[in-house]
């Protein structure tokens, strides 16, 4: 009986290590392990594979509930706004989204509402050029809400199917920058009731537990309707998304798996869980 307990402990310790090193976080990991421990039947304690599968299923349940793809046909123009901390991959993700929608036969318009960072507008313009997609812009330093205003009107006038608005990176802790986003949202909604139809939080998969703080704070102060997890093509597993899904119940629309315009995939819970345990 003592030997059995030791195997059981070792199995759970190994699983805890897999979870923590995948950035699931120690509390979420412990919570998941405890849920699994309740499920393991008396005779199964020495079946490490079966216990592992219980754990995978537990995580799959949480993530599958958030696997909800984006339907851009719900409005015209369908307005998407990206938001997230500095360097998470917003601008590149917009190029990928535009590419995706164009391949579906949609007419896409982009808006360079990051009027702050050096060469942010030029960066989006390069992508626009590669996509054959127009970019609404103003001078660097202008009000991002003014760009959003122009973009919504242009999208309507040009009969665009989708309008994607790029915003400057900002740490969730900067109150004045959150206010700026709120104003952009207000202007968009005023000029096109119901818009933005999707606001996407772009999270970097290499981020640790701070991603939870980002997800919660952006949710409380501003609100958003979907998540994109980028940079999953490296060695980071993005496990922090498990806790985020469990707690915040926000759909994960896509994942970013590279730096080119076709490096976008719809979020697939099963594949994500398998990759976590690879």
């Amino acid at each position: 009986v003592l030997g059995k307990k030791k195997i059981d402990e070792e199995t759970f310790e190994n699983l805890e290590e897999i979870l923590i090193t995948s950035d699931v976080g120690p509390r979420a990991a412990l919570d998941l392990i405890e849920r699994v421990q309740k499920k393991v039947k008396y005779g199964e304690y020495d079946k490490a594979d079966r216990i592992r599968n219980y754990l995978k299923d537990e995580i799959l349940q949480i993530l599958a509930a958030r696997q909800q793809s984006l339907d851009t046909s719900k409005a015209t123009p369908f307005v998407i706004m990206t938001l997230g901390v500095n360097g998470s991959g917003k601008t590149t993700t917009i190029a990928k989204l535009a590419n995706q929608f164009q391949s579906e036969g949609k007419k896409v318009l982009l808006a360079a509402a990051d009027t702050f960072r050096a060469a942010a507008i030029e960066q989006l313009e390069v992508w626009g050029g590669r996509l054959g997609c127009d970019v609404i812009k103003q001078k660097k330093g202008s009000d991002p809400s003014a760009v959003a205003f122009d973009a919504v009107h242009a999208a309507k006038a040009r009969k665009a199917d989708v309008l994607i608005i790029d915003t400057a990176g900002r740490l969730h802790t900067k109150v004045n920058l959150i206010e700026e986003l709120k104003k952009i949202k207000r202007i968009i909604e005023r000029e096109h009731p119901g818009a933005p139809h999707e606001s996407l939080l772009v999270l970097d998969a290499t981020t640790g537990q701070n991603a939870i703080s980002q997800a919660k704070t952006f949710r409380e102060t501003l609100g958003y309707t979907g998540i994109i997890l980028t940079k999953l093509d490296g060695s980071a597993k993005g496990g922090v998304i498990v806790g985020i899904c469990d707690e915040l119940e926000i759909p994960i629309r896509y994942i970013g798996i590279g730096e080119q315009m076709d490096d976008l995939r719809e979020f697939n819970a099963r594949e994500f869980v398998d990759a976590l345990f690879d």
Partner: protein
Amino acid sequence: SLNERLTVVFRKLKGHGKLTEENIKGILREIRLALLEADVNFRVVKDFIEILRKRSIGQEVLESLTPAQQVIKIVNEEVTNLLGGERSSLNLTGSQPVPLMFVGLQGSGKTTTVGKMARHLVRGNQQPFLIPADVSRPAAIEQLRQLGESLQVPVYTPQPGDSPVAICKKALDEARGRGCAAALIDTAGRWHVDEPLMEELRAIQRAVNPKEVLFLADAMTGQEAVNVACKFDEVLNITGVILTKMDGDARGGAALSIKSVTQKPIKFIGTGEKLDDFEIFYPERLSSRILG
């Protein structure tokens, strides 16, 4: 905070006489949790807890009238020790222009930090020359050009089609011709596991012989920070680390992992998006932040 949690743990132990191995276990569990929540690497935490365990079953805790304070003091000391060591400044020795290379993952803050370093050098009366060697990211060259312009610092104009190595060689010649004190090389973000791109960095290093190879790490990086830093260090023998985005609320445990595993000094931190949001690194401040 860890301080508060440990005080609660110790309060429960009061009146039990001497601390036992069992008590110590409970205390170490709290510390382990705090470190993991702060993104310190799993393995680094394991080794660190073992160091703490040996110290906390020693005289200084067991004989102390205030064991909680003693343990907290030890934890802070050990974390600060791990993070610090000799205060490390920028290596600007040797013939000018001294090449400094900036490397790291995608979006970690390299280009912006090159700008910050340039401003730092200008204030120290050292004329920098900026070299945009990122030919893959859209408008990366333009980004560095604009930063240089805002500082009135010269920036090399790459010839279209030139490789990063060719850009660096030609740029260094121009920097020398201009009599600049330092040449700052901005490189494209890349995965540590992308062999050809890591080899490209090695090629740049061989071509220009930088005095500093600075690894930029995002303060919010998770468990992989160790593997990333290790690989960059293995390939390039980095000379220092710069932590970016320290103005957020990330606990910054990745710094502890990176430092303990590479033993390379953390030299500066980025504390914002503006070019003057750049500070010298102080281990004690990060220590209390990681412990929460």
